[in-house]
């Protein structure tokens, strides 16, 4: 089966706003290298996890994938078509087929719009059905995402709902156009712990109904392990490791992945931690370290790491890692 989404050498740089004086004195503009040359494919029907710390570029990648922001360079092919170069008709069609679920449902919903209006507006924009049909469709969706009685929820405002219910509205709004591809950016981070699993279960059942493909963005490895089929680990705008969930969790290769895994708090008081925590914190993406970006914090770094950027080395057909420890042949 051809991949649903093919990303090659994608970059997104944001210009840094300096002071007036700095702009006058120097011609060189600083940029934040939020996403800096990543390539991957997403297969139809899978849940692909993008995992990383703050500043790793995972959210920017997610926004690029649904065309909420334009890439600086590189290509995103959705169903064979480069979405950055698509015509406006094609782009409109793409926006129906690809949706995003945001992290903060309170910020994602207009406080002056009722739940019904919020979900219905997508149908209005895409001119699907008559007004009465749209209302019926929204009521069905409210029911589907667990907001019953749907007639009552239709006329409620976001502030009248709990955090979990608001996130159900955001999910309903993403699903109303029956998309094929959904990016979920930390969908449970702002939701009460006791009902996080409810939201994930809802997303899984919607995936079954609609035959969805998900990109699941999270900083929480334990949740990624529960939810995803395949996982990519990002660090400072780069992808350092990608593989099937079990490959990445049971035999992590990149020293950064190993460190992340060992840092996860385990809900078992008898568990003895064998922690390999690198010193320091993720450096600035304005002046990232040379060579491998993790080398200043890496316990296994050697000469080559600061000089040469590692390419992806194949571990298995599905497991790849960007680390010189696993690549003995020097590239030119």
């Amino acid at each position, binding site marked *: 089966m051809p991949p649903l989404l093919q990303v090659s050498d994608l970059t997104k740089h944001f210009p840094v706003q300096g002071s007036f004086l700095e702009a006058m004195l120097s011609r060189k503009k600083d940029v934040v290298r939020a996403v800096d040359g990543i390539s991957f494919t997403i297969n139809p029907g899978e849940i692909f996890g993008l995992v990383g*710390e*703050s500043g790793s570029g995972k959210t920017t990648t997610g926004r690029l994938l649904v065309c909420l922001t334009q890439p600086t360079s590189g290509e995103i092919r959705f169903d064979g078509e480069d979405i950055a170069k698509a015509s406006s008709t094609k782009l409109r069609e793409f926006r129906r087929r690809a949706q995003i679920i945001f992290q903060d449902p309170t910020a994602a919903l207009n406080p002056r719009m009722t739940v019904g209006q919020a979900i219905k507006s997508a149908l209005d924009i895409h001119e699907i059905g008559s007004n009465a049909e749209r209302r019926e469709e929204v009521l069905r969706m409210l029911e589907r995402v667990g907001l019953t009685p749907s007639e009552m929820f239709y006329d409620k405002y976001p502030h009248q709902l*709990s955090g*979990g*219910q608001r996130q159900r509205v955001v999910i309903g709004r993403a699903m109303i156009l029956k998309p094929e591809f959904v990016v979920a950016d930390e969908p449970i981070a702002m939701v*009460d*712990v*006791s*009902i*996080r*699993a*409810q939201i*994930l*279960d809802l997303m899984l059942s919607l995936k079954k109904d609609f035959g969805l493909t998900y990109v699941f963005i999270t*900083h*929480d*490895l*334990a*949740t990624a*392990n*529960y939810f995803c089929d395949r996982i990519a680990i990002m660090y400072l705008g780069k992808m350092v490791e990608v593989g099937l969930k079990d490959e990445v*969790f049971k035999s992590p290769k990149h020293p950064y992945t190993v*460190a*992340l*895994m*060992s*840092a*996860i*708090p*385990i*809900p*078992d*008081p*008898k*568990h003895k*931690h064998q*922690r390999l*925590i*690198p010193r320091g*914190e*993720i450096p600035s993406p304005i002046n990232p370290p040379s060579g491998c970006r993790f080398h200043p914090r890496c316990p296994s770094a050697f000469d080559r790491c600061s000089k040469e950027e590692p390419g992806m080395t194949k571990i298995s057909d599905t497991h790849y890692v960007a680390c010189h420890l696993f690549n003995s042949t020097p590239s030119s």
Partner: protein
Amino acid sequence: MRIRDHFIELFQTHDQVTTKEEAVSRTTKLLDSLGIGGDRIDDYPHQFSGGMRQRVMIGLALALEPKLVIADEPTTALDVIVEAQVLELLKQLKEKHSLTLILITHNIGIVAEMTDTIAVMYAGHLVEVGPTTDIFEDPLHPYTKGLLESAPNVLHPERSMRPIPGIPPDLLNPPSGCRFHPRCAKAFEPCPVREPRLVKRDGRLVACHLYD
């Protein structure tokens, strides 16, 4: 406000005779012990990373050598690696200064790793109090059990992330009787009617009609 001024203010408020020089030298020593270079004393908070800022906060809490420290979600705003660093620091400081720590958190993994005793709260009430290992092994209150099962566990993904049904209670208008009863699978006649008392059971305290 520079880091220096935060500490000078703290020392001088509580100890009138402390000179600025004394306060600065105590601050430098303290920052060193927290893994922040003492030379950063003149920096402003925005010049620090999130983890470093939290280290400064820990320093402010420890500066007056307290016996009790209350840490309210101390790592919630931090990434997983920095979180592990800060937890490690808290553990060391706790040993070194023989501190008593009240850790407020919603992260079940951190509770398991850091605590000796847990008090579980729901809608403004204590529902269970006891030794950490006992509670993880055999939670008595249905809410405690649900909470533990709703946490993700990387080592056993199949045993984790089971949701608690329903929604968190409205505190303006909390449910009658036991506040957890609308979400509880084991609720029976007395639950919506009477508020359960906190009773002793197997070396712990639990507030649930199943045990009263």
